[in-house]
């Protein structure tokens, strides 16, 4: 299982149960997570799902517990992360939702809007990101 953490550089607006973090699409953001049950050689797949376009706009893969990305377009984004690790099939399939293929175990995707997995200020809470269009520079 992975646990998504807030991108702390962004500024937040708490709307009901989901916190919106605002930034601009020229900024590099860092999204982090924890590994609740680390295993050797584990890695993570990450996706940024664009809500308005109903499409995955960015994918990544890392063995680190964070990834830095630039938002490709403006709009709302939900972060998704899953763990990928070479473990025994019996161990892998012992957890609900895991899939096993060619010696590789993959967990379910966890989403940043799901308070089961997401945290804000160390409290279970969903979050997403809104990337504004970056303004032009000063007029001459």
């Amino acid at each position, binding site marked *: 299982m992975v646990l998504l953490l807030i991108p702390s550089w962004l500024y937040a607006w708490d709307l009901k149960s989901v916190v919106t973090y605002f930034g601009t699409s020229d900024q590099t953001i860092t999204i982090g997570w924890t590994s609740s049950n680390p295993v050797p050689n584990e890695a993570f797949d990450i996706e940024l799902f664009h809500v308005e376009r109903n499409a995955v706009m960015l994918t990544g893969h890392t063995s680190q517990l964070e990834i830095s990305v630039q938002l490709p377009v403006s709009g709302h984004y939900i972060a998704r992360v899953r763990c990928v690790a070479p473990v025994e099939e019996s161990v892998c399939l012992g957890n609900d939702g895991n899939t096993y293929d060619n010696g590789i175990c993959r967990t379910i995707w966890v989403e940043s809007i799901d308070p089961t997995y997401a945290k804000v200020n160390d409290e279970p809470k969903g979050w997403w990101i809104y990337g504004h269009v970056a*303004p032009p520079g000063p*007029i*001459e």
Partner: protein
Amino acid sequence: MAKLQPAILRFPPSGSPDVVTYKLYMELEGVGLTYDSQSYDIGNNIVDGMVVVDLATVPGMTSLDGVYDIGVTAVDDAGNESSMSTKDSVPLDFTPPDPPGQLEIGG
């Protein structure tokens, strides 16, 4: 036909990768610039790393004459606009002087 001097507006482009054009907002000085102010699509002409537009070539612009507060926004392919970069008290004069009188050629 009168000849108008160029009125060059320059600004650094937005850093967002999906910007397709820029909008210019204008309001008479002191009125207060908003997204409801008169606006013009000024394109995305980048020269030497700056967005450059000659206001004298923007359709409708040459009917303006006076001192204006102006703002520019970046617009992405979905039509979303950025916040405004503004500049106050910009004098615009697209009114040419009266032409000289009738030419006379004397012998």
